[in-house]
């Protein structure tokens, strides 16, 4: 029988929604038993949240000072030690999961399956390659542990309402001191989070300046939407990097995505393919973004966006 260990992602106090998405993916493996592991310094609130995720059998808690903040080189040997007894180890395909999971895979002597978008069988999965231009079906060897990351945009978070058992466990691993956390700088905002927001308003190079991005913020605030951007907008310094959507930014699946002054390069599109409705506003009717949008409007964003913001009163 399959036993899946899901590595929880959290910020030290609260669970990230990516964990419930990994559980949803793990549950697609026939007959799988799913445990969630919480590595933290102080885990009680996080573990309580994890125990509520439907489909979780047990929550394993590994409390250690060194686990906060999370450092891949510190977590990986503990995860690898905990992995024995499991057929699969899953983490989210977020910056956290992408950092730590391949390190776990190498310690276990296996390749990782990156970005699972669909489970086809116990060892068989589908994943995107070439920025989503091709979908590859892969099969991992049945005799080894399957280490994988789950493409969070492909899954709905598993429901709550569960009361899984919470157990303290320990992992026999020597922890390195060669990597030290210094700090984190985050674009403090009370706007909705890009990963989980139902609506996202995204601006591109066409905005022309950080000041002009104010138009995007106003529309987003009206809609209760998160802010997104293209790489060109980030590179030009209009918005911080964590807003970038696409192959090398965030992969998201909101109900509504509004792309404003974004041409629709393949690397950008790959980040929004799973959105419910894509709206594009662009002055060039030939812009590739229109090929994938549900609603398109050709025109100058500097006229359209203020008008739209007003119209939404």
């Amino acid at each position, binding site marked *: 029988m399959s036993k899946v260990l899901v590595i929880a992602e959290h910020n030290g106090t609260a669970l990230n929604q990516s964990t419930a998405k990994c559980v949803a993916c793990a549950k697609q493996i026939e007959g799988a038993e799913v445990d969630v592991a919480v590595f933290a310094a102080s885990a009680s609130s996080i573990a309580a949240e994890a125990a509520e995720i439907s489909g979780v059998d047990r929550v394993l808690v590994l409390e250690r000072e060194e686990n906060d903040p999370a*450092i*891949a*080189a510190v977590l990986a040997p503990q995860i690898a030690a905990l992995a024995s007894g499991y057929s699969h180890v899953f983490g989210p395909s*977020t*910056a*956290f999961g*992408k*950092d730590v999971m*391949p*390190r*776990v*895979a*190498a*310690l276990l*002597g296996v*390749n*990782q*399956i*990156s970005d699972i978008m669909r489970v086809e069988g116990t060892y*068989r999965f589908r994943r*995107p390659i*070439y*920025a989503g*231009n*091709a*979908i590859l*079906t*892969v*099969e*991992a060897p049945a005799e080894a542990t399957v280490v994988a990351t789950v493409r969070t945009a492909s899954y709905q978070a598993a429901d709550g309402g569960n009361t899984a058992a919470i157990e303290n466990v320990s992992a026999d691993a020597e922890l390195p001191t*060669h*990597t*030290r*956390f*210094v700090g*984190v*700088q985050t*674009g403090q905002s009370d706007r909705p989070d890009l990963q989980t927001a139902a609506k996202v308003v995204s601006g591109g190079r066409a905005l022309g300046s950080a000041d002009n991005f104010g138009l995007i913020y106003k529309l987003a605030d009206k809609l209760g939407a998160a802010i997104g951007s293209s790489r060109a907008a*980030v*590179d030009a310094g209009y918005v*911080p*990097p*964590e807003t970038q959507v696409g*192959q*090398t930014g*965030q992969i998201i699946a909101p109900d*509504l995505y509004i792309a404003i002054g974004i041409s629709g390069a*393949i690397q950008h599109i790959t980040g929004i*393919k799973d959105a419910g*409705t894509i*709206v594009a506003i662009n002055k060039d009717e030939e812009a590739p973004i*229109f090929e*994938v*949008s549900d*609603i*398109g*409007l050709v*025109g100058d964003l500097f006229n359209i966006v203020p008008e*739209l913001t007003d*119209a939404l009163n």
Partner: protein
Amino acid sequence: MEKILVGLKRVVDYNVRVQVKRDGSGVETDGVKMSINPFDEIALEEALRIRERGEASEVIVVSIGSAESQQQLRTGLAMGADRAILVETDTSTDPLTAARIFKTIIDRENAELVILGKQAIDDDNSQTGQMLAAIWGRPQATFASEVSFDGNTARVTREVDIGLETIEIDLPAVITVDLRLNEPRYVKLPDIMKAKKKPLDQLSFAELGVEPAPGIKELAFEPPEARQRGIMVEDVAGLVAALKDKGLV
């Protein structure tokens, strides 16, 4: 530090719209433009800047792939790398095997820093650097957007989902680079001529004593489900109506 290794993977150019072959056996690469993986160009640029600041003495570019990968290595030499190593193989290499190859080259060269791309844009695996750091038992600083050195430690700013994280790592170490770390230099014609004279060594898996890792089987390639092109609206009123229609506003 003495030597920096940089990985240069030969991949389909990022401007190409990749097509899946009719029989589902792979993607079309015949007659398609090939280039250095864009992240690897950034990795090389960073290594060159570190050497130019006098913080390293030699930059060695490494590619694991077909004989044609020499083209990408020559470009790397023209950019300014001192030497190149081609580890020749006709089959595509999985990340764990690539990591094992890099580890043997680290040992041969006594390299103290390895800079790789955060991901290769063909398989989008994003694994090799992390795996190399694991089997080397050394630090990893992934998705770097800023790197500086102070003696035997490096300070690296990383692009993570909530913003920018800074960590400090002891050398030797592996760094994988993100797009905003730097802008790679252009290659000038005289540099291309000079690069022809720079050493390019060829090694085989057997010479390095590396066995390919247990692979993940690639069963079938398919094109993605296409999104349908939707409607065009005339004006803001039309847009608002269409959004209302879908219950989105």
